[in-house]
């Protein structure tokens, strides 16, 4: 059973990443860059340069493993699934930082520190939103959270949850308004010195994370595998694909403000909003 579930998770990740690349219209470019020269920068941190995309992929895989593919059935059947996903989110900041640190060049370095400054406060709304989803389930397990949505999905019961989590998803996948690591004013930031297969692998890992974060959002807010007629995994795939398309669309359409202003917005606007969200969710759950 475990082997079968592991294969399902791996298959979802592979097919999902391909789908994400097509949504992004970058699939052909990624293929092309796997075959090009990988340029060595001046005195880089070789170990972290090679490991950063590998960690990003690891976090995408580990995150997707806590998602239940059918009611009561997840690869990591943990009573603290939300905590595992939360630690994956936090480690994304470390991974992106290492990616920007390792080439020993100014633009990647600025991108890395900038992302750390935005990524840290983004963690707060993220955890408030996930904890609010745990309230009606009386458990930190994603399986229990799915069960708690049998009658009504969290997206309706906790209306601020999905919008707040979409902001987190944009930050986790380095997209559009939350892409402070790879901005245009620093020549694609942490990736400014990445070339050839290194660049292509980083893009792939970024798209793999889009699959995981969308699957988590589908589980926490859209009832995951719950749905009539079709089998559980199919519902999960459909909801995940819809959220992936939504996140890509939002990333392409919403403007990004300056990092200092975004940090202020995160603390002074989005954090109080997530307090409010927790209060509403708590009152509804009682």
């Amino acid at each position: 059973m475990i082997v079968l579930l592991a294969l399902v998770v791996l298959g979802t990740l592979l097919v999902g990443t391909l789908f994400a690349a097509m949504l992004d219209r970058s699939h052909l470019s990624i293929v092309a860059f796997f075959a090009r020269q990988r340029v060595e920068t001046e005195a880089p941190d070789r170990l972290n340069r090679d490991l950063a995309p590998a960690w990003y992929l690891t976090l995408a895989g580990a995150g997707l493993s806590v998602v239940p593919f059918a009611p009561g059935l997840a690869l990591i059947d943990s009573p603290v699934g939300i905590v595992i996903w939360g630690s994956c989110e936090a480690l994304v900041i470390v991974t992106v930082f290492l990616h920007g640190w390792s080439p020993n060049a100014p633009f990647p370095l600025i991108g890395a520190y900038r992302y750390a400054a935005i990524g840290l406060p983004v963690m707060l709304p993220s955890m408030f939103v996930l904890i609010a989803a745990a309230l009606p389930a009386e458990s930190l397990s994603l399986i229990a959270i799915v069960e708690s949505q049998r009658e009504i999905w969290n997206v309706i019961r906790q209306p601020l949850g999905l919008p707040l989590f979409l902001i987190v998803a944009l930050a986790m996948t380095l997209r559009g308004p939350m892409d402070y690591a790879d901005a245009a004013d620093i020549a694609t930031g942490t990736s400014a010195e990445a070339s050839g297969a290194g660049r292509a692998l980083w893009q792939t890992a970024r798209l793999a994370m889009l699959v995981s974060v969308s699957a988590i959002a589908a589980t926490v807010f859209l009832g995951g595998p719950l749905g009539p007629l079709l089998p559980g995994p199919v519902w999960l795939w459909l909801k995940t694909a819809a959220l992936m398309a939504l996140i890509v669309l939002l990333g392409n359409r919403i403007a990004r403000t300056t990092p200092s202003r975004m940090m202020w917005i995160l603390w002074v606007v989005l954090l109080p909003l997530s307090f409010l969200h927790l209060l509403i969710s708590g009152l509804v759950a009682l």
Partner: protein
Amino acid sequence: MLTFGIILGWAVLSVLFALAVLPKAHATAPQAMPFLGGGTPDTHAWQRFHFRPYTMSLLFVAFEMEMMFMYPWAVVFVEEGIKALAEMGMFLTILSVGILYGWREGIFRWE
């Protein structure tokens, strides 16, 4: 234990995949120079970098610790009822005063 095994499995798989697809990087001296739009740097980029939001990161630590209390709280919330809501409300109010104080002191400014 199984959880750790699965996460470790993902790590091993990802690292092996990365090693398999990443060729050894190589470059001549002019290729290796950091990209500055054709310009040249005086020094290495690695430095004692001035991380502007360092004051914000202190407040962040306070909130991260608070999250630890929220995990068990979320599990017993429905059981404890309105009492749990009031307790967390008080806790968050106190932390919010921290945000207001920090805001007044300018810790969300980029300096």
